[in-house]
């Protein structure tokens, strides 16, 4: 096997001369000589990118593929050819691309059916190099439906097949369809034993496969959670790979896999494997002594793990100085470090935005639910400055993370009143909303909702800077989440607002849009629109003013909703709007003059749902309120309609709230 290649390498024009020579030899008749030259070729290209490129330019790939595909060729020749291809695939990205373009992948996948292990291994090595490169042609793996099952069949044959197949699958599982396909072909049973392998280079890619198949996939995650390896539960095995004397990569991946299983509801967030293993491991990965990539990955995974679980958020908030550790991410690279090493600086700069985004995401998760944690985060030195700066970061991922973080923190009444105001967060936020994509808009407008709450001091300046128009635009979006946020924010804005603001909203939104929203397919949007109406129609002068302008249309819309198929909550909200209208002075006439509506109200008084009964009674009570002008006539009309009798019947209600309302209403009748 040992070839004397020194003469070729020392040749002054190695490429030209030898290349041609090789090609000629490859086309020779004597198969032994051909094999001999393939081996020589292998030795010539190994570790030499230039040589690889040159050989490929001469068309060596095509000839090698011919050998590989030739069923009658000696298996030795076919194997060596596959090995040379594998070597070529280890070169630059461009080389890999040329191989893919030459149609190497389907041929090699086909060859996996061969019974010679050495040959199959050669093919697998080459495929592994191709699929793990940046230009991996993922879909090619799934073109022939027989490939994946066959791979899983032969996986256990040797350490090389184990290693290569796991690496390929880990790289090629990108969508939930891929996950499903792998799962239905028994990937768990085939690969689970490999987690207990004694070989690191088998264990690690196998673990990676488990990470990619469990990610946001409940079915696969549950199956993994209940799988066993020689009678031990698979999750226990993952915990073992998480032990602190394992490699960092392995600890990270197993913590990640446990995280994915937890978020897919396959493991409880209270499970000790999560609380005492995955969580502390991820927190440890954020620490200063880890590499930047590891810190980023750790923080991102941590953010995902604790995103929706208060208890995990609490534990994380006091574990191992996590908050100060994460806030260091934001200061990276620190200005103090002297700029000596340019390479190092480049590396730092490349990672600094990833670190910032990861830390902000982690803060967003940490502060999602608990006021004390939010306080702790905000009290961290300069942190708010960094969040605000993040809102106008040049990198979009950082901006998005900063908005998420801000959104979490904006759930705190105290913060809205204090630090948010001190930092004038609304300014960069408004700017961000001007031309953001939908992802960004969703989070940013959610934050905006909170900033527009009645007690928030940001409300005023935001109104002045054109928030109303922006929000009205949002209500016209296709994405229901955006419509919801827009209308929600408007609702918050209208709450206890001045007449001026209310008019501004109505003008900007337009009644057409308002009624369009009242027939929105998304019930949440409908609810918030009704909420907006209710907030607009509060206190007498406002009610009369608005009803004076849009009374007709509003009444139409109300009738429409009361007649439609809607939930109790929607109907209740609508009756509340009627109650508000009936609290007006001139507005009362809109109801009194509409027998249809009055009829509906009385019907709801005897509805099976007590909440609707209460709302309807409240409405009546407002109409008959005896201190107001024209009360007597209204009482008479309603008495004629049998409302008083109805009220008396309702006195027997066991619901105390209803009883009180009924009593108040009856007292109004004179």
């Amino acid at each position, binding site marked *: 096997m040992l070839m004397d290649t020194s003469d070729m390498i020392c040749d002054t024009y190695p490429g030209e001369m030898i290349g041609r020579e090789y090609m000629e030899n490859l086309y020779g008749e004597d198969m032994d000589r051909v094999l001999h030259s393939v081996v020589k070729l292998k030795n010539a290209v190994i570790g030499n990118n230039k040589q690889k490129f040159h050989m490929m330019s001469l068309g060596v790939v095509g000839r090698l593929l011919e050998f590989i595909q030739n069923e009658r060729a000696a298996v030795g020749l076919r194997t060596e050819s596959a090995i040379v291809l594998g070597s070529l695939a280890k070169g630059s990205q461009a080389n890999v691309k040329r191989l893919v373009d030459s149609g190497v992948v389907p041929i090699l996948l086909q060859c996996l059916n061969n019974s010679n292990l050495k040959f199959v291994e050669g093919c697998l090595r080459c495929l592994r190099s191709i699929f793990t490169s940046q230009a991996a042609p993922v879909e090619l793996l799934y073109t022939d439906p027989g490939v994946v099952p066959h791979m899983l069949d032969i996986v256990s044959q040797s350490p090389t097949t184990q290693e290569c197949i796991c690496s390929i699958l880990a790289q090629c599982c990108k969508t939930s369809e891929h996950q499903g396909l792998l799962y239905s072909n028994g990937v768990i049973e085939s690969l689970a034993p490999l987690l207990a392998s004694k070989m690191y280079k088998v264990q690690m890619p196998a673990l990676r496969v488990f990470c990619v198949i469990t990610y946001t996939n409940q079915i696969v995650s549950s199956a993994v959670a209940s799988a066993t390896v020689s009678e031990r539960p698979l999750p226990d095995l993952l915990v073992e790979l998480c*032990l*602190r004397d394992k490699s960092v990569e392995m600890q990270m991946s197993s913590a990640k896999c446990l995280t994915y299983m937890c978020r897919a509801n396959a493991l409880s967030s209270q499970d000790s494997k999560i609380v005492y293993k995955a969580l502390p491991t991820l927190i440890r990965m954020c620490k200063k002594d880890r590499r930047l990539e590891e810190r980023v990955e750790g923080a991102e995974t941590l953010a995902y793990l604790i995103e929706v679980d208060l208890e995990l958020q609490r*534990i994380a908030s006091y*574990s*191992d100085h996590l908050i100060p550790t994460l806030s260091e991410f934001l200061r990276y690279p620190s200005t103090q470090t002297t700029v000596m090493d340019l390479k190092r600086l480049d590396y730092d700069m490349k990672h600094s935005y990833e670190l910032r985004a990861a830390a902000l995401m982690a803060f967003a998760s940490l502060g999602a639910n608990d006021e004390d944690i939010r306080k702790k985060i905000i009290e961290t030195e300069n942190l708010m400055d960094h969040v605000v700066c993040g809102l106008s970061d040049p990198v979009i991922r950082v901006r998005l993370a900063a908005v998420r973080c801000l959104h979490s923190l904006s759930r705190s009444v105290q913060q809205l009143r204090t630090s948010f105001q001190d930092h004038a967060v609304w300014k960069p936020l408004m700017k961000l909303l001007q031309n953001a994509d939908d992802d960004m808009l969703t989070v940013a407008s959610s934050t905006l909702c909170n900033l527009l709450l009645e007690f928030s001091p940001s409300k005023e300046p935001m109104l002045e800077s054109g928030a109303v128009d922006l929000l009205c635009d949002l209500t016209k979006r296709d994405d229901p989440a955006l419509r919801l946020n827009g209308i929600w924010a408007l609702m918050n804005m209208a709450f206890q607002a001045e007449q001026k603001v209310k008019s501004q909203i109505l003008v900007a939104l337009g009644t057409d849009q308002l009624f369009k929203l009242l027939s929105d397919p998304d019930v949440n949007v409908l609810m918030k629109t009704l909420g907006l109406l209710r907030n607009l129609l509060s206190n007498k002068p406002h009610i009369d003013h608005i009803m004076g302008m849009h009374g007709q249309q509003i009444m139409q819309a109300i009738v429409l909703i009361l007649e439609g198929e809607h939930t109790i909550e929607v109907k209740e909200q609508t009756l509340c709007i009627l109650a508000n209208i009936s609290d007006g002075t001139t507005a009362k006439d809109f109801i009194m003059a509409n027998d249809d509506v009055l009829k509906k109200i009385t019907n709801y008084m005897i509805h099976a749902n007590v909440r609707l009964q209460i709302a309807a009674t409240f409405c009546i009570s407002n109409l008959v309120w005896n201190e107001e002008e024209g009360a007597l006539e209204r009482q008479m009309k309603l008495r004629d309609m049998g409302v008083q009798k109805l009220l008396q019947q309702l006195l027997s209600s066991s619901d105390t709230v209803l009883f009180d309302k009924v009593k108040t209403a009856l007292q109004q009748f004179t």
Partner: protein
Amino acid sequence: MTGLTSGIVRQQQKAKMADSGDSSAAERNNSASETADERLKRIYSMVNEKETPLPRSWSPKDKYNFIGLSQNNLRVHYKGIGKNHKDAASVRATHPIPSSCGIYYFEVKIVSKGRDGYMGIGLSAQGVNMNRLPGWDKHSYGYHGDDGHSFCSSGTGQPYGPTFTTGDVVGCCVNLIDNTCFYTKNGHNLGIAFTDLPHNLYPTVGLQTPGEIVDANFGQQPFVYDIEDYMREWHQKTRVTIESFPVPDHKGEWQKTLQRMVSTYLVHHGYCSTAEAFAKSTGQSFTEELTSMKNRQRIQKLVLAGRMGEAIDTTQSLYPGLLERNPNLLFVLKCRQFVEMVNGTDSEVRGLSARSPKSRNSSGSSTGSEYRSSPSLSPSHHRMDTQRANGKIERTYVTGNKSPNTGELINTKSNPSTSANQDHASVAEMNAVNSVTNGFSSNQVDVEMEVEEYNSQMVCNGVSSRVNDGASTSYMNGCSHNSQHREDLMETDDFDTDKEVQSQRRQLCGGSQAAIEKMLQFGRELQGMSVQLRRQYDKNEANKKVLQVKLHLTDTPVYYKCHSLGGSYRA
């Protein structure tokens, strides 16, 4: 450390030999059935309990009166009145944490938080006052349940972790490899609380209000926190360090490296003839000239003898420009000189005082266990202590100075009026010293502040004991800028330990008036220098480090003196 690492390697090899996949499972099975002894042996496999027993229970002898013990001395309850912090009470474990542990861990379960839950869990050195919660005094460290703060030898805590209360399990881990400590709560690591810990600390708990009950687990029961996983990481780290240690010679030939190591060690410490002989027999060469080595040795001896002035002069004449180039080094040397002046050793004041320099303990046997001082004089630098026992040079350091004479003590006692007179004069000056030293501290980083503060208290205590009432007020004045809280704590001690302090009295600058003045003058110059240095260098990391070094330099001689005087008084 060498013993430790080799132990770790051995353990690792053992683990390697066992089936790697199943070894931890086997371990887990073991832990269910193994006895307390087996557990401790396994966790602390490198500890020889015949020499250094592990803490296994609280000590019925080393506790304050208000502490009650039960359940094989593992349960601690409070039985005092618990009115205020003066009623705090602590108990130490029977033994200090053996250094050979590498990593040590114990847990405390809060059985009841009692009235207010003022519980402190931590570590303290032998001799630290037990009428306190751990963390309030020098060489005492604690994590307190009521506020979740950590206390590092100070009356004021730092925000550290969550609060803890009934039902919680709080763990304390001492890492003797990097001298840090972290706590855990219910199995969650709270992060590093203390760094630069001395060795030979005892597990300690302190309680302060009635009804407080805590149970300790020194490893007899499985721990809530997975400490073995933490140990595993350190074993791995150590192994990797050893494995990846670069060998500059060919293919792992260690001989040359080892020889070079010995040779540079000998040269560095100025063992000229040995170095010469060694170099000859191993075919190595060293560049430094013999005379230079001898010169360095001479300076070293002067420094070790406390004759700082001479040491500085010699350095300046032999290596002109060296100290000018290293103003920080000069500053450190001068700080030390100031300390030596105060205790009368330095040559600047030595000529002026009637007596020969104050002695240093020559026995070298001052282990922590013999040392009991009042808390206000507390610092016993155990770390220095152990280093001394290990290193070779430090042993030669203890030169045969004159031992303290008891005659002198009797003398001052029998003439109280004269000495009081003399001291009244010096009280005023002492306040001046205070302001000088305070001046330092305000200009220095935090670490140093404590040293300075502490020094000034040392001096003042000496004074106040002599003049009793008259002086103690001015002492308080002198100290009050430092820290209100601290002063509060100090107060009680002053009276408690007055007697002890009196017995340990020594004279400032060897008792010479002229020397005192000179010392004060020197102190002022030193302050000027510190201000200037700060202006020049701001606070760079190196400077900080230098000042930390100084902390040890200034502390140690004092400790030694206290010990030797105490000893002679008892005799």
